[in-house]
């Protein structure tokens, strides 16, 4: 996990050291130290929850700029389906795609197109015998990292297929080289137009693949105004879109699961809700389900923190956009076998960042210390010490990262004596 390049980051000058983010971080990755938040890199899953919560906009997502890739001969835009929900009064998504070309891209490959292919692959894969039940979607990288960190026993339940962003990038490169034989792979730059920091972080630190075929991630809200002004000048957009209802539906929670032609599915969104579902899957109470779709953001990808529009408005717009679309524009004949090239090329490994020690005897001994310290704490979980809960403070003390004096309640009691 070293050299992990996070998208979620902190602007220390804006941080007031309040406790909003520490208490809601799903992996307890944040502490307040010396008056400002500190993110533990090994534990951060780039879900973006703290960006949403911070009242002072001190949490930010790092993303790339289009200009940084100007040296490449051929630039391909990979718009996330969530992008389509950001604009009012659209008849089709073609104007967005054409505007991307006018912004300087040489080609566009819709992630929603690849999503329809992933749907096809999943329908086929799910029929295999002996698979762990339920399968869990691997499209949301924040969820995949959450599972690796907090639910390691469910790593094998993850759908081992490449997520749409990756398949899109690989197909886009192949397509570009076919159309332009003079291009080599190094001439091509693939840029994802991202709704969230988790996917930007995925590009730099992919899960399931050795190296991502995506070069960089732009933020929807960064490119939005430029796109909108290009769209205003467009009279007759080129017909570029190759996506149906299924591809568009991937933008919202439930879109992936409902496309699988099985009613034995569950779709949950919002990281807290996803954690509750994963706890139940781990308890073995959901084996009657075939598929579990989890999205870290409320509403699904339209709820990502790099969007412009409210997720519910975006969903409503997508609904009217898909009105005249076919169900899917990308199908694979049943006779075609499931190619190995759509599977993960590396296994997803559990992330042991939470373990107190690699030696179990020592870890248990440390846990005894933690429990002893915890018994002496006020159990208010107020967060004033800078840790999200009294138990987390006890853990920090034993890890040597905090002291009992960080507890303001106990300090005051001692002062009063």
């Amino acid at each position, binding site marked *: 996990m070293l050299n992990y390049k996070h998208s979620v980051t902190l602007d220390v000058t804006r941080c007031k050291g309040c406790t909003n983010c520490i208490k809601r971080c799903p992996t307890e990755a944040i502490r307040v130290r010396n008056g400002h938040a500190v993110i533990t890199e090994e534990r951060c899953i780039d879900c973006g929850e703290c960006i949403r919560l911070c009242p002072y906009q001190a949490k930010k997502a790092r993303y790339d700029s289009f200009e940084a890739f100007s040296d490449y001969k051929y630039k391909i835009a990979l718009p996330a389906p969530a992008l389509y929900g950001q604009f009012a009064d659209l008849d089709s998504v073609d104007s967005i795609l054409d505007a991307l070309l006018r912004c300087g891209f040489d080609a566009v490959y819709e992630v929603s197109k690849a999503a329809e292919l992933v749907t096809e692959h999943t329908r086929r894969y799910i029929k295999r015998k002996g698979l762990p039940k339920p399968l869990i979607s691997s499209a949301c990288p924040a969820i995949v990292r959450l599972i690796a960190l*907090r639910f*390691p*026993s469910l*790593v094998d339940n993850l759908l081992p297929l490449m997520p749409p962003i990756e398949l899109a990038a690989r197909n886009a490169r192949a397509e570009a080289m076919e159309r332009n034989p003079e291009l080599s792979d190094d001439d091509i730059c693939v840029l994802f137009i991202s709704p969230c920091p988790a996917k930007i972080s995925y590009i730099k630190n992919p899960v399931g693949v050795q190296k991502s075929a995506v070069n960089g991630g732009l933020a929807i809200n960064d490119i939005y105004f430029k796109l909108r002004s290009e769209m205003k000048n467009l009279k007759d957009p080129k017909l570029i879109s190759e996506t149906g209802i299924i591809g568009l539906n991937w933008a919202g929670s439930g879109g992936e699961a409902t496309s699988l032609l099985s009613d034995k599915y569950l779709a949950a969104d919002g990281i807290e809700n996803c954690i509750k579902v994963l*706890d*139940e899957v*781990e*308890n*073995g*109470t959901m084996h009657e389900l075939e598929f579990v779709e989890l999205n870290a953001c409320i509403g699904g990808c339209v709820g990502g923190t790099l969007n412009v529009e409210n997720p519910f408005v975006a969903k409503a717009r997508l609904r009217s956009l898909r009105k005249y679309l076919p169900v899917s524009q990308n199908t694979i004949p049943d006779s075609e076998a499931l190619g190995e090239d759509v599977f993960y090329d590396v296994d997803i490994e*559990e992330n*042991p960042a*939470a*373990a*107190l*020690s*690699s*030696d*179990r*005897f020592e*870890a*248990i*001994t440390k*846990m*005894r210390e933690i*429990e002893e310290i915890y018994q002496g704490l006020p159990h208010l979980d107020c967060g004033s010490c800078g840790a999200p809960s009294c138990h987390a403070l006890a*853990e920090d003390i034993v890890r040597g990262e905090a002291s009992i004096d960080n507890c303001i309640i106990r300090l005051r009691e001692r002062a009063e004596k």
Partner: protein
Amino acid sequence: MAGEINFHFDIDGGNFTSAGEASVRIKKLLRDMGFPPDVIRRVSVAMYEGEINMVIHANGGSADVNVSPDKIEIILADSGPGIKNIELAMQEGYSTAPDNIRSLGFGAGMGLPNMKRYTDEMRIESEVGRGTTIYMTVNV
């Protein structure tokens, strides 16, 4: 003793929403102590089934978990109605859960069999009218 730790949980009776809390809690603690994922899963399934049983049949009870590097012992104790016929209760699909519980999706008669399946040792002590204690061990 160093290298050993005990956790105690009170299981609240008649509360389905909080049933499973001890199992979630112990999962986090075992993860922090670096136990392998399959061990954590087996303990959490066994604990969860036990918790649900105590909520359904015994108006709650307690769970004690003794953790050492090579094994995890779980002791679930309640002062409920007791089990009349343990052999029958251990059969898959046998359940004495009332209809209102079954309508919630519980009472499939898999609780005790699952606890046995997911643990390495399981022993039930029960006296009708006095209560039930279940001892389970998961070897690491």
